[in-house]
């Protein structure tokens, strides 16, 4: 059964969520919220992949989504461990204050 909504609607929704995620990464200063906005962007891309998989009739899109999810899980684990280690050293999660690598 064809999806009731045309493909472009799904792609438009995905673009909007991706844009919201980008704005979140650029504007927020709390590292955890930046991380969550990155997860939003990844999910918007997942929606695009699944929509195209449906529209082209190929399962490859869903396989790629499977990999994106797995890599996002690994990335979340390592990223949060980094944040833990950072917090232990510097007692702050404000991205404006974590600037030691800047010249």
């Amino acid at each position, binding site marked *: 059964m*064809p*999806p*009731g*909504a045309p*493909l472009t*609607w*799904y*792609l*438009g*929704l995905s*673009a*909007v*969520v*991706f*844009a*919201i995620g*980008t*704005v*979140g990464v*650029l*504007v*927020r*200063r*709390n590292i*955890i*919220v930046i*991380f*969550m*906005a990155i*997860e*939003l962007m990844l*999910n918007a891309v*997942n*929606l695009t992949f*699944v929509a195209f*998989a*449906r*529209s*082209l*009739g190929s*399962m*490859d899109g*869903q*396989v790629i*989504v*499977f*990999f994106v*999810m*797995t890599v*996002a*899980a690994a*990335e*979340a*684990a*390592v990223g*949060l*461990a980094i944040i*833990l*280690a950072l*917090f232990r050293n510097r007692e702050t999660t404000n991205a404006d204050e974590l600037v030691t690598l800047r010249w």
Partner: protein
Amino acid sequence: MTAPVFLLLAVLVVAAALTVVAHPSPVYSACALVVTLFLLSVFFVALDAQLVAVLQVIVYAGAIVVLFLFVIMLLNLTQPESRPTAGVPVVAVAVGGGIGIAALVAAALRRVPPAGAPALPEGFGDTAALARRLFTAYVLPFELTSVLLLVAIVGAVGLASRKG
């Protein structure tokens, strides 16, 4: 999924995503993220991707965001940000950039051929179909991903354990 249902769910997704990005408290952002992921899972079911939808709930909403919540609560990271998130010029540029991305995608969409949905093969989107693709054409990325997960586990444990 009919158009009105799609529109309703899309509005909810956008509202939840805005809450993730805009709410001052990280705990509420995390809860809004769970809502967003769950609603996206509903979209996946509507797109005949049942296994991916359930995996989204199990992995993303059920494990990754729980990890976020753990870190927020253990480190007590809910103090509001010490100064306003960013100056007005930065916000303006960021929102402009977001609109720019959306506009770019909309322009690209004009070139997508308005093809009707082809007849889907039997059992599209269920476990057997995904497994068939995964273990034949994509077996190398699959093995590499398992190595990646192992490396991530070792790295995370190493980073998070106290040194000395």
